[in-house]
């Protein structure tokens, strides 16, 4: 487990080569090359921002800002094959900043904090989770409980949890994004899960 970073990752290596090529071409003045980078990572970037912010418009604004900041600093990127991790780090940081700013400036209702969850979203979640309609976890209350529990986590734990346990990004990539060791990712994910198991105990019973 601990040597996951040292194991070969052909797909990741190939993606890294493609990224490095796109970065080099962008730096050489080929505007279309950056479009490739946008298309390659936009879904993951928006998904992570959305799960951190709970609002799709905010998530898209943050991601657009992240792309522009990445473009602006592209010449400083030391490892162009790591563009994806670098971009996701920018997205994560901007999302956390946006969230802090929102908390400071707005008087949030519970729905605002959870990103304005609607009943259809709750139903969609339940279907993805394989739960039958009417289960406790399908309720808006349960959804808000999850939002509140995740919101209460320290930033490193919340980020690690969102990236790995929610978004399904491999731990090796999460470690690159968060600029920490894989062991630290595992530890943060575990601490987050343990806190959620306690906070959501009533929703996790049979």
């Amino acid at each position, binding site marked *: *487990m601990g040597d996951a970073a040292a194991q070969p990752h052909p797909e990741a290596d190939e993606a890294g080569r493609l990224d490095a090529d796109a970065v080099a071409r*962008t*730096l*050489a*003045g080929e*505007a279309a090359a*950056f*479009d490739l980078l*946008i*298309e390659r990572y*936009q*879904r993951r970037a*928006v*998904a992570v921002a*959305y*799960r951190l912010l*709970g609002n*799709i418009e905010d998530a*898209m604004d943050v*991601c*657009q800002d992240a*792309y*522009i900041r990445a*473009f*602006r600093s*592209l*010449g*400083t990127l030391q490892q162009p094959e790591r563009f994806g991790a670098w971009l996701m780090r920018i997205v994560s940081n901007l999302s956390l900043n946006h969230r802090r700013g929102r908390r400071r400036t707005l008087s949030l209702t519970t729905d605002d904090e959870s*990103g304005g969850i609607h009943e259809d*979203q709750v139903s*969609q*979640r*339940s279907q*993805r*989770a*394989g*739960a039958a309609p009417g289960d406790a*976890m399908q309720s808006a209350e349960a959804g808000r409980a*999850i939002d509140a529990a*995740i919101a209460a986590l320290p930033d490193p734990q919340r980020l690690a*949890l969102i990236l790995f*346990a*929610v978004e*399904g990004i491999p*731990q090796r990539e999460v470690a690159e994004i968060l600029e920490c060791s894989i062991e630290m990712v*595992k530890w943060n*994910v*575990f601490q987050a*899960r*343990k806190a*959620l*198991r306690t906070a*959501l*105990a009533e*929703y*996790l*019973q*049979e």
Partner: protein
Amino acid sequence: MNEKTDHLEQLLSRLPDGDLTPAEHATVRRALADDPGLAAVAKQYERLHLRLRAYRPLPGDVDWRAFSTRVADGVEDEWAEQASSDLDRAIDPAVAGATAPVASGPRLNPVAESYRGVEDALQDWARPLPQVDWAAFHARVSDAVRAEAASARAGQPVRGLRRWVTPVAAAAAVALVVWGLRLARPPTAGPGGSTETVILVALDLPTSGGQITFSFDETPAAGARAVEPPAGGAGIAVGPRHDELEDIDDAAYFY
């Protein structure tokens, strides 16, 4: 919870991830066999895993094409914005290639090219003057001036001051340019080892069609003073240094 049970709980929490090693799997199996109560904990983590995988699914109606276009437009705007502030870097191809895409973006290319033209001109400016047969050039100019002067004396009156102001100003500008160029290289040693030089600009009389011919000559100071003023022509002489320009004997050089 002690360290051992904490480690065991961590393994239980990772069961749904499917990334336990065979040894870790064996540890979990033994623990579950020894303590049936742990199965409930494992079940809770499995449910939590499913709930987290379903957490905040992206809305299904996201227009990704519109989003990528929006981001690309933002990047394009950034490109243009950077272009205006980073043109200095764009002048230097090495810096431009190493630091930013702003040096050669589609919108920037024409601007960057124009700056490269300026750069080329500056490099030309710094180059040494080409070899010129100044004596031959002066002779040619003097001949032309004399010819024009003769023509003027034959009945073509000079048409007022305006006829002179522009050519003299032009000649002065040329003289200053040449003077500046001369500063970029050591002065030419004149006769007798003198390094003091002046630039002589000879200006022909305007032709009847308004065409002006002027020329400049690099001549050691002593030589310049020996130049016989062409009848009917005009000339400006300046030294290679500002103080020489101020100390110059206008009567000798402006004729």
